């Protein structure tokens, strides 16, 4: 092997090792959580309400709460995020107003989540009078998710080749028909990826739901969108810091459920994406 060949081998080996470094924390975290929490995992843990100062029983209300919050977040943030991204990419002219919107989207993603929490509390809970409720929490999480959804959708739309739009318009299609038939179908996989990413982040957030929806201890299921709920991340925070003599395995098992939930969402998005890729090849 000549000198250049050896140098290439060294370079790729280093690159490979560094990439391994990225994988290591993920594997370690998952391994750690499973090894500490698996023993507490049981059917009862997943389906029962907490008992005896949350030291016994399960986390069912928190699972339901988090799922409801994800669904609520999705209902608000998906339409607004995707439609505004379509507007920005496909319709908006490049003027001061559009640039202002784009700038605010970028800045929105830089705001700390606790600030979203305070904002949601002031606007939804107090001013609009929703109270600490699923509605207020979902709306707060939705606003927090918007920048990522908008950015991901924008990138997915911009990645669709210009020629598709050109073909469509040159055949006399309207701009909406062009977006509908020649752009959106090819952007859906990318939109899905970004959306699920932002929703799984929303699922794991504690700060935004702290003042807007999360209940410390509420062993029954909500009856309406104006009810409080328990949520996995907040529950995890509570049992790890506020309850004395809490068995550590319960905390880890709760974390495991949260990770599992997020993984499940990612899995759904992968399946959907594969389905769309198969339908639309490009």
């Amino acid at each position: 092997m000549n000198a250049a060949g050896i140098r290439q081998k060294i370079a790729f080996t280093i690159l490979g090792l560094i990439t391994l470094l990225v994988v290591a924390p993920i594997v370690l975290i998952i391994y750690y959580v499973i090894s500490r929490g698996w023993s507490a995992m049981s059917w009862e843990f997943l389906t029962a309400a907490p008992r005896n100062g949350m030291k016994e029983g399960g986390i069912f209300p928190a699972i339901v709460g988090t799922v409801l919050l994800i669904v609520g977040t999705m209902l608000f943030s998906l339409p607004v995020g995707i439609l505004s991204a379509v507007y920005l990419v496909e319709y908006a002219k490049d003027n001061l107003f559009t640039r202002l919107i784009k700038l605010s989207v970028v800045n929105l993603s830089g705001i700390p989540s606790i600030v979203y929490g305070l904002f949601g509390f002031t606007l939804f809970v107090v001013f609009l009078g929703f109270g600490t409720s699923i509605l207020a929490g979902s709306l707060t999480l939705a606003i927090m998710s918007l920048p990522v959804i908008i950015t991901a959708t924008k990138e997915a739309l911009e990645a669709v080749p210009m020629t598709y739009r050109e073909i469509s318009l040159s055949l006399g299609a309207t701009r909406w028909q062009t977006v509908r038939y020649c752009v959106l179908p090819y952007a859906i996989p990318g939109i899905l990826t970004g959306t699920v990413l932002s929703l799984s982040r929303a699922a794991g957030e504690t700060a935004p739901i702290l003042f807007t929806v999360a209940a410390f201890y509420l062993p029954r299921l909500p009856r309406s969108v104006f009810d409080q709920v328990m949520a996995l991340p907040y529950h995890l925070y509570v049992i790890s810091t506020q309850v004395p003599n809490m068995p550590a395995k319960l905390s880890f098992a709760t974390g495991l459920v949260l990770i599992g939930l997020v993984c499940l969402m990612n899995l759904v998005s992968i399946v959907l994406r594969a389905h769309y890729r198969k339908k639309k090849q490009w």
Partner: protein
Amino acid sequence: MVEQNVIIKTVNLNCFYGDQQVLRDINLDVYRNEILGIIGPANSGKTTFLRAMNRLNSRYLHYRQTGEIIFENQNQQDIADTLLRQKIGIIFAMPQVLPVTIYENVAYGPMVHGVRDKHRIEQLVEESLKKAFVWEELKDRLRSPAVKLSGGQQQRLCIARTLAIEPDVILYDEPCSGLDPISTAKMEDTMALLAQSYTQILVTNNTKQASRVSHRCAFFLMGEMVEVNQTQKLFTYPDDQRTDDYITGKFG
């Protein structure tokens, strides 16, 4: 030629990208059912002229134009984008197919223009592919992806796709620049046969192609139309010295 045989007429057409003027006072008549060749070196404004015909330039930021384009005795500005582009179709330089099946590529145009009847669409697809002379090659694989076709087949599929919206005028923007000689010959044969029912404007870098295919030919140079003449005349006794220099290969 009598006035009613003019299908497109430009009057003092000037086109700009920002401050840069790319076309200067173009006065050109296009006659019904002719093949009008447009030749000239790069950056002479040929493509801009072509895309001005069905207002595709308006997609570009900072594009503006002055003067008039008269299409079928009507000011082009008064015709809606969708109708104008249905009447004036375009074939792009590189074969550009949508990443769907052959059938869906051709059916797309009629679909966006509101044809819902399946049999009518099927009929249009078949007719269009026949008119573009690709039916025999493609009839058994209508449901396979269009991107898998060869460049020449793709380009003729593009013609079929344009024919499916039943235009009056077909614009070609260097349609053979990415094709091999045999595919090019097939394209040229197709154009010659389409001349019976369509008006065609052919922008090409290939002067030989213009001399083979077109009835009349215009020579563009640096945004100006130097001359327009019967093709035979332009390629044998051009009126302008610059045309002579270009077609004999002294520059370009």
